[in-house]
């Protein structure tokens, strides 16, 4: 096999690729923040003694965990732009692809985050809630001041690992022609007829970033385990 690698289109494309990386990071960060907040609420609903609330949360989590991410994203690309346009009276030409990607990821990831957080809440001994209640704290105070801080401490490595997976998954937005890092690499490769080089390069960047972060998480986990 004689394939002549030609990496020359990469240096010139770096600014464009960096713009793509910024979009990938933007989606990741929004989805992580929203996912943790909404996921925490879902987890608390799911553990709540009020049955309908628990059912709603369980239904939500099971629904999103049972459909492929790519389908959720596709629905969001098809439906959310319409909704956003009609709700906010936007010009039909406004680009809402990034917003719908963020909403899609956030709603999807919150289902996964909620399961991590639920496990974290359940890892805190029941006696802690009893002690907080015995001191006169309300349920929400006991949660906020006593249970969640301990739960999050136990969960940090898992939450970060999920964020790394999420970062990789953002590459799926390329199918909406949104120029995230992967989409940008694909576009450049396509334009210059150097798809193989660009995809190898993109893969290497994903690997280096994610592997490094995983190592950081592992270190963190070890350090926290000794405290």
């Amino acid at each position: 096999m004689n394939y002549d690698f030609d990496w020359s289109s990469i240096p010139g494309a770096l600014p464009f690729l960096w713009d793509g990386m910024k979009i990938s990071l933007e989606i990741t960060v929004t989805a992580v923040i929203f996912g943790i907040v909404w996921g925490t609420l879902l987890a608390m609903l799911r553990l709540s003694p009020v049955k309908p609330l628990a059912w709603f949360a369980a239904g939500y989590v099971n629904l999103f965990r049972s459909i492929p991410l790519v389908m959720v994203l596709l629905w969001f690309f098809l439906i959310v732009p319409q909704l956003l346009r009609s709700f906010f009276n936007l010009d039909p030409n406004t680009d809402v692809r990034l917003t719908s990607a963020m909403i899609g990821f956030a709603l999807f990831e919150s289902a996964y985050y909620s399961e991590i957080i639920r496990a974290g809440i359940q890892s805190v001994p029941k006696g802690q809630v009893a002690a907080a209640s015995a001191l006169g704290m309300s349920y929400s105070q006991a949660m906020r001041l006593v249970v969640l801080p301990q739960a999050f401490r136990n969960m940090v490595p898992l939450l970060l690992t999920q964020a790394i997976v999420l970062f990789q998954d953002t590459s799926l937005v390329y199918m909406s022609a949104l120029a995230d890092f992967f989409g940008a690499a694909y576009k450049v490769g396509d334009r210059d007829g150097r798809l193989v080089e660009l995809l190898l390069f993109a893969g290497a960047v994903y690997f280096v970033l994610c592997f490094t972060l995983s190592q950081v998480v592992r270190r963190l986990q070890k350090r926290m385990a000794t405290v």
Partner: protein
Amino acid sequence: MITIDKVSKHYGSFQVLTDCSTKVAKGEVVVVCGPSGSGKSTLIKCVNGLEPFQAGAITVDGISVGDPKTNLSKLRSRVGMVFQHFELFPHMSITDNLSIAQEKVLGRSKDEARAKGLKLLERVGLKAHAEKFPGQLSGGQQQRVAIARALCMDPICMLFDEPTSALDPEMINEVLDVMVELAQEGMTMMCVTHEMGFARKVANRVIFMDKGLIVEDDSKDAFFGAPHSERARQFLAKILQH
């Protein structure tokens, strides 16, 4: 102070408490003992509503615990409770453990709460450990902090749920000493414990439970002198053997 009237509780078909009735007067120290599974811990947790019960009534300082209209959190803030496994908050320093409920529940200022916490920490002999975290203290020290934490709320009575049974033997006395001192100062106390030495020293009354029933409820001298029931006699013989 505490009135327990015909309280019954069951988990499904399993009866945990059957028609339990007793009273604890102001300033009285009542020890609750009995074999494991007799329902004594459940009974004491019913007193501040940590465990719900299906029948009967409990009042603390005239306020009904089982009444859905009662503000349970408010009532609990006036009743101190000490747990078998201490249940200090591991992510907070000792100072914060002592002041958090004072600030968030009683609305005291940070300075006031800290000062009160330190005063009570000194009282249980642990002032030097104020800035440490619970994990850095021994079991006995943690339990003394837990007692101080409950006292910070200026409770009208104290509930102890097997406060020494998770401790190494050499740490039991430091905790009992604090409890004896409290009792001698006139604190109203209900203690689930197997420490018969403690019962002999400070209890006014001893309640003996078995299979969810209050089998004996008598003055300390009557209980240790001549228990009415065969079951209590056997129990005493076993635990006082050595």
